[in-house]
């Protein structure tokens, strides 16, 4: 293993995703707390050029992201898969207005889940997003999260599309103990 690879391995992927969001000039972050995204949420919260908004329920974030774009800023929505079902009706603004959305979704109920109540929504996450015409881009390797978010950001902000990057539970190890 080269020094560079060893260094990259030591660094948690959330730092690289955060760097991608900074390069993309993301200014609004809407999130519902999640173990798998905790590192990224902390980095965003610590950045005084990003406005991080904690939500009471996930659909608020979809509406806020639409407002951010309408006001001329870029945003990112961070959520656990369990909250995707809450977002369905709100996502109609992305489709009807063709407003960009960059969502990063941390999976539960998927890879090695030990907690049974997470399985129904986890297994429905991709289907629900696709039903709401959100483009789904799954990633299941830690060293590919940042480049997937970077590609998704272009599709969102430059091509005006709604994209969800689905971060596998294989990466986050969320829910191994239920």
């Amino acid at each position: 293993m080269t020094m560079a690879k060893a260094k990259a391995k030591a660094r948690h992927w959330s730092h690289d995703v955060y760097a991608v969001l900074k390069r993309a000039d993301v200014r609004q972050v809407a999130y519902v707390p999640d173990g798998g995204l905790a590192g990224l949420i902390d980095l965003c919260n610590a950045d005084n050029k990003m406005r991080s908004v904690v939500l009471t329920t996930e659909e608020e974030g979809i509406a806020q992201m639409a407002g951010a774009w309408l006001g001329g800023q870029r945003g990112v929505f961070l959520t656990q898969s369990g909250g995707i079902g809450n977002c369905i009706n709100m996502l109609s603004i992305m489709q009807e207005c063709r407003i960009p959305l960059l969502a990063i979704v941390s999976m539960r109920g998927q890879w090695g889940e030990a907690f049974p109540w997470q399985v129904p929504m986890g297994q429905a996450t991709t289907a629900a997003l696709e039903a709401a015409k959100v483009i789904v881009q799954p990633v299941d390797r830690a060293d590919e999260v940042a480049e997937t978010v970077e590609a998704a950001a272009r599709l969102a902000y430059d091509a005006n599309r709604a994209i969800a990057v689905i971060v596998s539970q294989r990466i986050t190890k969320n829910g191994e103990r239920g």
Partner: protein
Amino acid sequence: MAARKTKPAAITLKRRDVITSILSQRGDAAVVTGIGNAVHDVASCGDDARNMYLAGIMGGASMVALGVALAQPRRRVLVITGDGELLAGIGSLLTIGVEKPKNLAIVVLDNQAFGATGNQLTHTAAGVDLVAIAAASGFASTALITDSSGLEAAMADIHDRPGPYFAVVKVKTVTGPRLDVSRDGTYVSRRFRTAMTGREG
């Protein structure tokens, strides 16, 4: 408790008059409407590129407006919505109360009914107090407006008081004619964004 679902007497304000009065002093404010009659109320004062008519996403108006307000900190952002729409996204008041955007004001036209679907009574008809919820959520100032002198007294606060500001205006269920405003989201949203940012695309 049988009386809980009956309306209190003496509501005198009409929603169209209230909105005409508020928007006549809008300055450069952005206006985000909730779904339902609020769309037509706002459009009745003249179509404007700075109006974002949300003819869907019930419960989303306040959070769309928060996103706009954070992106446009020097511009007043005014939500015009109904009690039914606000109730559908009531958690938004808590989120906005935490964020405390100084340039955001929410005006709820409270007819105590779901006006677009046949005037079935809403929770406010049973006494749910939206002003108290907003105050408890951390809004900087709130008002309950029940008559024209109250509306006149609140006008400066609606447009200029550091927010987040929240007002409930008790209105009759009577509406005005439906306006032929564009419901095409791609058109209305891009027109609005260009008006906000001064640039196309």
